[in-house]
């Protein structure tokens, strides 16, 4: 499916509806990205006010999810879309759920960042968390770009990046355990920062999910839980088929 493929309906209104849903998802994505950005800024700048503000603003993300959800239901009920249109609507419904969860994790990060702002900070100013956050942010950004461009290759890149993020989380977790054993006074702080890393890792998973929906939307193949190798092969095969067709 190409972007232009969406332009084939006799009803212009239907087209506009689908285009609108797509843009709304991406606008929601933009909001979620900003929330995540601010939550991480709250962590790096030790800005507890900003962290709590992020937590408060999560309501905006939730409201957007509800409104897009309603719009999708309306399209399903009144237009009975088929084929690629149906896939777009289904992928949208799933994507907004994951975006909303990312929003929730950002809220969590905001609260944790606010709490960490008031206690002593390690001399590295949570370098490993900032690194992890950078990678996760790039994943979210990449997944939304893939959604906007219907770019399955870009989606594949994000899916691949998830393994590295999982490893990073693992090492932060182990490091945290070592620190806590060395000095029990740091336990509450390390617990908080580990929870924060956990939230970031979860965001990576949600970004990966969105990418899988993009592959579903474009190629009509459900690649969830099939392993990276299989996803790679599917995308390769589908792209080749598409090229030979055009």
């Amino acid at each position, binding site marked *: 499916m190409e972007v232009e493929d969406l332009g084939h309906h006799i009803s212009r209104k239907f087209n506009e509806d689908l285009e609108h849903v797509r843009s709304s998802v*991406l606008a929601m994505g*933009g909001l979620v990205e900003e929330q995540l950005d601010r939550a991480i800024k709250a962590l790096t700048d030790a800005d507890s006010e900003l962290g709590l503000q992020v937590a408060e603003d999560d309501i905006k993300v939730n409201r957007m999810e509800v409104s897009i959800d309603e719009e999708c239901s309306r399209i399903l009920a009144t237009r009975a879309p088929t084929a690629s249109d149906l896939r777009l609507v289904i992928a949208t419904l799933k994507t907004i759920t994951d975006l909303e969860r990312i929003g929730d994790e950002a809220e969590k990060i905001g609260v944790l960042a606010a709490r960490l702002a008031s206690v002593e900070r390690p001399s590295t100013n949570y370098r490993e968390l900032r690194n992890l956050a950078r990678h996760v942010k790039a994943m979210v950004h990449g997944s939304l770009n893939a959604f*906007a*461009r219907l770019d399955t290759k870009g989606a594949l890149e994000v899916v691949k990046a998830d393994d590295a993020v999982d490893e990073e989380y693992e090492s932060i977790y182990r490091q945290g355990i070592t620190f806590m054993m060395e000095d029990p006074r740091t336990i509450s702080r390390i617990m908080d920062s580990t929870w924060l890393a956990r939230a970031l890792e979860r965001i990576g998973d949600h970004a990966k999910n969105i990418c899988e929906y993009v592959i579903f939307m474009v190629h009509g193949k459900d690649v969830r839980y099939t392993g990276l190798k299989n996803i790679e092969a599917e995308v390769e095969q589908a792209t080749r088929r598409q090229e030979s067709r055009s």
Partner: protein
Amino acid sequence: MTLPNRWASQFAALAGWLGAALLLGWWFGGSGWWLAGAFAAYVGHVLRNVFLLDRVLDGHARVPLFATRGLWAEIFARIDRVRAKARNRKKKYHRLLREVRESTGALSDGGIILNADHEIVWFNPAATRLLGLNPATDIGNRLDNLLRHPDFVAYLAEPTPEPITVPAPREDVGWLTVQIIPYGKDQRLAIVRDITREVSLERTRRDFVANASHELRSPLTVISGYLDSLADDAEIPQSWHAPVGEMQRQAERMTRILRDLIELTRLESADEGAPPEFVDVIAMLKLIAREFQAAGHRPSVSLKIEADVALLGSESELHSIFYNIVNNAVRFTPPAGSVQIVWKTEGDAAVFEVIDTGIGIPEEQIPRITERFYRVDPGRSRASGGTGLGLAIVKHALQRHEGTLGIRSVEGEGSAFSCSFPASRVAYRGGATQVAL
């Protein structure tokens, strides 16, 4: 209708064929057959030329000049001429297009052309670099699908002439300003500029000023303290009284400048609007007016309350707005003059106005007087004890209240400074009693 000459040969040829057929028919008999034969031959001749024409139009083959004669030769020659012309024109446009492409490619600012639905029609290489756009996939996609920052999405829906600043979607670029310029029929041009350097310079400058002011304040406190006790010391010789007094005054001035600098940096770095707390403006203005009325050797200060409204904003910031403007008016008005403070409404807006009969400001300097340390008459304003930061503070504090500053002045006759606050910042007295309860 007159036919061009070239048709003559065509008619002559046709007439010749028919003439020959008739002649042969008269000689040999069976003129019907001869005529039919002549027509067939003529049609054959025309068909051959049409076949040639078809080939010419199809491919790019040229018909040699000797292959045809008369009208057909002319037609083929004309096709050739038209073709050559078109080819030249195409070449010219190609060159022009290439030049335009090259020049827009060399631009350091990103340019994106959008249609009425915000879909990308064209963009230059700088846009690729700044926004991470992909020329292969992004034409036809909506710009707000790719640049998704909520502020930008809102801006694109309702563009203002002022550019908007957003964090760049790419990691290696920090901050961008984007400006949407409508043109033609439903077309928009988005100009994207990388301002990472400006932002970081601005931040460095602000941090420097803030740190320097803080660091200077503590030594100054020590100096002021000793100067105060020196001034009170009865043991110091008479000749030292004047210098110590002057030192005290200068130290005090320096403290004021530092305090203003710190206040100004704070206002600059706070980017969001002031919190909407209830501020009883009338009581505040009464206090300010009383303060200036009390001192002697000053112009008379009067207060006129025309509207019973209050504001929603930051109390300390509103105080520094009002205080600084009144203080300025008093300082630049001779003792015989007058200063009038007015609090009124204009439509939905609340307006604070200070009218003086002072020395006024030359018209060409009005736009510059809110710059920090800008002085219309350096000697005079320093003598009157100003820090040079008052109006800069007013400007920034007003911005945080979405207010606007208006300045009218006639040199030698006086000035009027007015601050207008939008309806969203105005609270009515009813609100005051509620809050008071």
